[in-house]
Each structure stands twice: as C-alpha cells, then as structure tokens.
C-alpha cells in the first residue's frame, strides 16, 4: 500500500491552521507556522484556491477558508430534490410565459436537463429530462458557467464547437459574455444552439447563495425576442428571474 501523500497532508495542515479562527494569514505566516518553504506553501494555496477551499483577500493578499469548504456538507443538492422543490414554480413560469421551461445542472462539462415543462399549447412535445446540452451555446449553460469558475476553467482554450453561425466559438468572446451574465443576473442564447430558437435563463441558488442549477424558458426567437434589436423581451426576462428567485428562496438562499 502506498504511503500518505505528503502534499495532501500539508494542504490539510494549512486548512486546519486557517480554521483556527486567527482570521486571514499571509503566505509567509503560513509557511513559517508549518515549517514549509514559501514556494511549496504558495503552490498548495493556489491549488486550494482553485477548488474553492481557500480564498485570497484582494487588498491584503492574505488567505482564508473558502465558501465552498464551508458548504461542503450542505451545498450538494440532489437533482430529484431540486425538481421536487421547483416543480410548482416551473409550472407557473410556463403558464405565465407561454413557453417551455427547463431546469438544468452541470454534469461533466454539459448541461443536464433535470426538469422539463411543456409549452402550454397542447402541441405534441416529448420530455427532454436526461438530455445533455452544450454549455457554451445555451442560456442554461452560460448561467452555470458564469457562476462556476471551475467549470469555466475546464472549457477548451482553442475554439468552441459551432452549432450555428451565431454560436460563440472564441473563448475570449465567451468570457466577456459570462462577465455580462454575472452583471445582469441572467443569460440568453439567440439562435446560438438552434436556428430560429432562443432561450433565457437565470441562476437557482441554494444555501449561502451557491448556484445549484439554472432555470430557462426556450422557444421561437420571434416570441422571445420580439423587437428587431435582437434582445430578449424584458417581460419574459422578469418572469424567468422571478421564478429563479422564488425557487432559490424555497431552497434557503436567504438574501437572493
């Protein structure tokens, strides 16, 4: 049997040190406390920061425990639980908007559809629960990427797969788009996944504001973006954001 992995032991020691309640610590202080080289300590801290277990304060440059670590036990939300808790609000969103509703979560670099409400026009539609959609070309995917730095970091550095001529294929353009999503609190996709189709999505937050999924409406681009400006109808955006907030409130995302 292989012995303990030294770097994980050291990472655990750093987390214990930060958890002792002395507040924020600098690299030098941590290195000195644990008797490690400063370079080694820095490497471990950067890795912990990458997975969200440690955060660096921008002004002082000091380190503290990260939000992900604090919610390690409670942030995980079973997708079937998510559907169960969201179902009434998703129905109401479909009824108000007249469009199909999807709820998605992240799964292995894709959007997993965990809930689907038919467009209320009684046309023949089939349930898309379990389907996987591309992250970069859908409103659901953009929301999930915008609020999950790790998933965003896993996107390929070179070109993204074009699905239509409007798909964002340059990582830089997508990055700018994600910044916009964070600022506005919603995402859209206008013929980026399928010609003639558009979607609008907003984040669903759980305890501590952690984004646990996204809810979207999807339908014909003529209905979702009725003006010639090619922007989503603000009334529909309101409906989506409102539904997302109601679900988030039910999930315990306090201030959201």
């Amino acid at each position, binding site marked *: 049997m292989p012995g303990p992995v030294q770097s994980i032991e050291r990472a655990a020691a750093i987390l214990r040190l930060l958890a002792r309640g002395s507040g924020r610590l600098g690299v030098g202080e941590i290195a000195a406390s644990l008797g490690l080289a400063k370079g080694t300590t820095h490497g471990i801290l950067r890795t912990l920061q990458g997975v969200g277990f440690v955060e660096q304060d921008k002004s002082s440059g000091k380190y503290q425990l990260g939000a992900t670590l604090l919610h390690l036990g409670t942030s995980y939300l079973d997708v*079937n639980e998510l559907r*169960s808790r969201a179902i*009434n609000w998703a129905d*109401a969103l479909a009824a108000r908007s007249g469009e199909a509703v999807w709820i998605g979560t992240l799964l292995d670099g894709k959007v997993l559809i965990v809930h689907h409400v*038919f467009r209320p026009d009684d046309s023949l539609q089939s349930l898309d629960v379990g389907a996987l959609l591309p992250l970069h070309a859908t409103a659901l995917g953009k929301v999930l990427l915008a609020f999950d730095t790790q998933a965003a970091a896993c996107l390929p550095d070179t070109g993204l797969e074009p699905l239509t001529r409007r798909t964002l294929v340059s990582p830089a353009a997508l990055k700018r788009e994600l910044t916009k999503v964070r600022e506005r609190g919603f995402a859209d996709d206008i013929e980026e996944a399928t010609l003639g189709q558009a979607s609008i999505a907003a984040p669903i937050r759980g305890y501590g504001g952690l984004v646990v999924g996204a809810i979207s409406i999807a339908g014909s681009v003529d209905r979702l973006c009725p003006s010639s400006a090619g922007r989503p109808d603000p009334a529909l955006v309101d409906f989506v954001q409102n539904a997302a907030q109601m679900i988030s409130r039910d999930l315990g995302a306090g201030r959201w």
Partner: protein
Amino acid sequence: MVAHYVMSVDQGTTSTRCILFDRGGRLVSVTQREHKQYFPKPGWVEHDAAEIWRNLEHLAPEALHRVGVDPRQVAALGIANQRETTVLWDRRTGHPISRAITWQDTRTDTLVAEFAKHPDAAMVAERSGLPLATYFSAPRIRWLLDHTPGLYEHAECGDVLFGTMETWLIWNLTGGPDGGEHVTDVTNASRTLLMDIRTLQWDPELLAFFGVPAGMLPRIRSSAEVYGRAERAVPGVRIAAALGDQQAALFGQTCFARGEAKCTYGTGSFLLLNTGDTPVRSTHGLLSTVAYRIGDEPAAYALEGSIAVTGSLVQWFRDSLGLISTAPEIETLARSVEDNGGCYIVPAFSGLYAPYWRSEARGVIVGLTSYITKGHLARAVLEATGWQTREVVDAMNADSGLALTALKVDGGMTADNLLMQFVADVLAAPVVRPMVAETVSLGAAYAAGLAVGYWPDLEGLRRNWHRAALWNPAMDAERREGEYANWRRAVERTFDWLQPDGEKSGKSGKSEEPEK
C-alpha cells in the same frame, strides 16, 4: 364591479387553503392555515370544527386582501373538502356538540361489525354503492347519538344538525344560527351510507338501518348551483359549489367524459374513473360514488379505487430504514441500478385493499439474494406504486367494461420521472401531468364558476387544461407481463400472515384507511 376571480376553499385533513383563480384557471393568491389534530385514544382522530370555521373566516378575506381584490370582484366561491368527517352541532347556538370525528377514525369498528351481522346488511351496499366500513359517516353519527344523552331527541326535531365539512362551512358562511343554509352536495352525501346512489335522496330504509333521524340531515343539492350568499367572511359572495376532495380533483383534471380517469399520488393514492350517467356496481372491490352533478343535469358517477400505501412507503424507506434523507432521493437511488434485481416489495402494512381486501395480509420483501443492494430496494419501492395502480386500473376496466386509454395524474409523487415512466410502462397507456398541480382547489373553483356562468361550459374548462408532461409506455409486452406475474406471486405471499388467533403473531394490525 366586474367579477374577475373565483374563490376556492380546500378544507383538507391537515389544513384549510383558500385560493383565488382567474379566468384562465391560473392561481392568483393562496392562503393556508393548519388546524390541530386530536388523538384522544388509539384509533381516534378528531378535529375542532369551530377552529376550522375560524380559520376560514380569517383565510378568505386575507386571500383577497393580499392581491387587493374586493369581494364584489369574486364571481363565486366553491368548496372541496376532506370526505366523511362528521360534525354535529346545535342549530341555535352554532356550537359543535363535540369534536368532529374524522375519516381516519376507527372507533366505530365494533359498531360496524354489529351492523354487518344484521339480516338487512346486504341492502347497504346495494343502495349506497359502498361497503359497510368505518370509513363512512353513518356509523359515526350513530356513535355520537349513542354516546351523548338526550341527543337523539334533539336530532329528531332538528335542533341538532349533522354535516360533513362542506355542510358545516356553508351553514356558517350563509349566516349560521341566523338562517344559515343546511345543505350538502351529492358527492359528499354519497359517502355517508345514507343516500340512495340512484335517486340521490336520503333513503328511509338506510336511515332506519343506521338509526339516524331524518330531521338532522342537510338537504342534498347539486355539486354546482348557488346555495346562497355569504353573510360572513366574504359578504355577498355566492356560494356555488361543493365537492368531496377526490371528486374535485377529478373535476379539476377535466375528466368530464365517460372513461376518463385521474390518480392523485400522495401518502396514499386515489384513482377515480368517470363512468358516465349510471353508477357501476363493482364486483372487484371498488367503490361506486357520485362524481359530480351540475345544476339540473343528470349526475355523473365514478368508480373509486384507493391505494393505502404509496408515498407513505417512500416515507417509511426514508424514516424507518434511513436509506435516503429526502423523499425525492428515492429516484436517485433507484437510478443507481438498471432494474429491481428480482426484488419486490408488497406494502400490505395494514392488509391489502382493492382489489384483494385481505385484512390478514402483511407486507413482504421477496426475491432477496446477496446481489440485492439498496438501489434495488428503492426500485422495488417505486415499482410497488406502479403495480398497485395497475391492479386498480385492471379492476376498473373489468367493472366498467371500459379500457383506460390515458391516465391523468397529480400529487407530489408526479415529480418522480422514474415512477411516472414506470406507471406508463405497466399500464401500457400514456400518463399525463397537467400544468396546475392544485387540482382539488381548481375543481371546486371550476364547479362554482360554472354555476354562475363565469365559465360558459365544460368545453371552456377543457381549454384551460394544459399538459405539463407526458410519459409514453416504453416497456415491451413480454417483460411487462413477466414482471406483473412476479408481482402477483409476491402479493400471494402476503396472504394469511396474521393468524386467526391474533395474539400469537405479536402486534395485530387494525385496518387503517389510506391517508389523503
């Protein structure tokens, strides 16, 4: 002032809810308040009817207030209620003479056993469409008359009134001691054992059989017609509908045509099939009941099959076995395996109901091998609900001569996609979920709105119904029949578990009725 809304009151087992709907059948405002459950002795379950009335007096104006609606903008009010719960009250003071005896209460079991020995007992099922059971109201009225000195005389002359919850609320809304309307509707009356299911009138021989004086009974009215105007809570609003909760769900699901059926999946589950304008006598252990009656039109009837343990099996898996931490996680666990691995769970926790009616049966888990994991058990838990639905549907098809073509579903378990797909698979029929989950409240609102012309006709209501999800059957016939045969063999293994000498087998299980 233009009437924009219809108000619905759902007086349920644990709470009372007041919902305002618009013309599109969309929910506009909701208020809800729970009431206390009283368990004075084992098997006794009571509610305080005065508390429930006070709750409604608060909830109805509050539902309007929250959205700034004036009572004059409310076209009508409809009531859906927990069925068979029995309350007696003093007509002059308006005070209940005791707490209401709820539908779950089994205090009348010995009384019912005595009634069953009577030579005329066969007449009860023949006239009322129901089996003699503790579930229904008549034995509770008799129990209260027997246990309260002097009550019989007061009841005879109409000073003490009987009602199920809709009757109690309508009487209070329309003025109470000051001229309140003492009425019930055909669906609620059909659950008393006292109404002739064909004439829709109180039956003198049934009254004599149970020893219930006619003077205490409300007048039987249609499910949708104006009973009177509210004097209290929402003054001026017309009270225009009453339905038992499961019938209201059938109506809310717009199952208006013969052969249309709905199943409400909750703690227990209730499947109702519209059988058209004649009652169908069940020879497969189902109940024959009134579905609704609109104004002067002929009544529509239904066959009802109840499944005692569905959602409560998932709760047992969560709380007693601790294998999941929330109910929806059963789907996650079940999806961790491909199939049931040969394992079946028959949850005959308090005997088997329709179509078997074996009170001595107890639950089993069969097919255990070292291969079985908790994932297989989770599958077996969900599949048990699917197979029990299939058995009730088979009984309904056999009784009615109709073949179910699609099942409309509602209730909390419809969020479980694996289960809904399995129900479609084992029924070999599509399963459809509507967009408004509140089918009980919606049904009462629809009936009230129809009565006052807020909605023109049943077709108009159908247009409000929208599909939110559809599951098509995908299991091949050979596998379905093989699995069904396995399920039935598992069911047979539950038979005769309790020995006639109940002492030996430890805890004897009293029959419990399914929860709503």
